């Protein structure tokens, strides 16, 4: 004969298992941000999906246990007496702490690994350190990555292409299937470069060359926003005209940009800017 508390445990276990399977199946169907336009965004979407799948049974277990307890162990109407004494259960406590610790450490490990990949470029297909492009190559050559400088200012981003004589653009254009090294800096105050669909967000600070890595996978447009409150027009510091284009389209575009830039007095490429001279400020 099964003891009453075993009956409760069995009911909870079965209900938890069934609901968890349903929850995980639903979780697998979700399309989670930021998408699949770059290797980084694919990795981040996968990470979010993993967290969703692991946390779903935990969430269902906690909510189910609370709801079951509220109904199964409620005080009967008109009955005024204390509940039975509870002395704890060492095995359950150890199991609870151990399972929680394992889940947290797994998620922390996976998350740190992803952060490290974004910070060091280990997602790159090439293990060599990124170098400047030779003529005609746009990020696909072994050991090479397209170098793009992101320059933030109140309240706009511009982009310099170090591989192409340091030409500068109003919008960020990238070739598909390319390794890209983004050098992010600012000419005035603290900003944050956030290309949402590309899965890239990094601080833009004056006097700092903040490097992050990107591998484009799909063509399409993306939005760039500032993710650091940077003054009265911070909300306007956005550009919806960023795009990942085919290699041929990029070559055409950058050639035109080089022509357009001929009349602009572009200074030699510098890794970062300082907010000086302090024009008209004292």
């Amino acid at each position, binding site marked *: 004969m099964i003891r009453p508390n075993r009956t409760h445990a069995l009911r909870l276990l079965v209900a938890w298992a069934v609901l968890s399977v349903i929850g995980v199946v639903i979780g697998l169907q979700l399309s989670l941000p930021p998408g699949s336009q770059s290797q980084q965004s694919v990795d981040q979407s996968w990470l979010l999906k993993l967290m969703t799948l692991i946390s779903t049974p935990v969430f269902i277990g906690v909510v189910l246990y609370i709801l079951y307890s509220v109904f199964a162990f409620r005080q009967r109407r008109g009955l005024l007496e204390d509940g039975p004494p509870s002395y704890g259960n060492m095995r359950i406590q150890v199991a609870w702490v151990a399972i929680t610790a394992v889940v947290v450490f797994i998620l922390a490990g996976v998350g740190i690994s992803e952060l490290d990949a974004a910070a060091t470029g280990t997602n790159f297909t090439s293990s060599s350190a990124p170098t400047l492009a030779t003529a005609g190559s746009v990020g696909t050559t072994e050991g090479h990555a397209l170098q793009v400088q992101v320059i933030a200012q109140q*309240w706009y981003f511009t982009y310099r292409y170090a591989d192409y004589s340091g030409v500068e653009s109003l919008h960020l254009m990238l070739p598909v299937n390319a390794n890209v090294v983004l050098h992010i800096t600012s000419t005035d105050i603290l900003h944050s470069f956030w290309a949402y669909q590309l899965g890239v967000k990094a601080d833009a600070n004056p006097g700092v060359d903040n490097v992050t890595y990107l591998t484009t996978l799909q063509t399409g447009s993306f939005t760039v926003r500032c993710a650091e409150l940077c003054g009265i027009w911070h909300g306007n510091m956005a550009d919806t005209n960023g795009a990942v284009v085919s290699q041929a389209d990029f070559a055409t575009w950058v050639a035109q940009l080089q022509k357009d830039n001929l009349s602009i007095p572009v200074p030699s490429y510098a890794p970062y800017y300082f907010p000086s001279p*302090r024009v008209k400020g004292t």
Partner: protein
Amino acid sequence: MVAGGNNRGTATRLVVLVLFVGILSALLFFFIGGFVIRGPESLTASPATVAQGNTPAQNAFIHLEVVGSVAAAITFPRPDDPHPTWVSYLPTTILNVPANSTVTLQIDQEDTPSGLRNPFWSQAFGIEGGTFHMTYFDDKGNPQEGDFSSIPDPATAAHTFAIPDLGVFVPLEGLSAAAPAGSMNVITFSFKTGKPGVYHWQCFVPCGSGTIYGNGGPMQTTGYMAGFLVVQ
């Protein structure tokens, strides 16, 4: 007697509390209301004109002045301005223009050069024909005139006129130190407006004198070096 005294004391405290809350609410109401009401006035573009001689047809025309300090305005004085020492576009920075039209903007630029932190902004973008017309004074004080796609030297820029969402960016040449007193550079250009909406515009030169890196004061206050283009 004692109970009546307590009641009176309670009533007094209640009246004082109600008065205090009422006065505080009124002050807050007037402060917030005043802040909302005191925004800059708007300037509506003059109506369309037809082509006459060498003057092309214009859908709309706006005339602005840029000064190093509001108190030094020549064309559009603003005597009651609370910040007479601030650099500013005048007469206002709220500009009403028609949708799907060509807007011609004339800017009387009277401020001296301060240079561009990013030389990229010396190039004009998004304007009709790719060039702006400019009358200016060279470093010897001689008047000059011409059509330009960029200013020759980023170091001689004073300000820019930029509407990022319309892709319009125009550098404004600073007034030469050798120019006669009371003179100005006149920059004229046209751009197309699109669908109705409110578009933010600003100066890209950090020109807020006396603020950290020049980015405070007039750079952060609507009505001076930034505003809205209301396309309707």
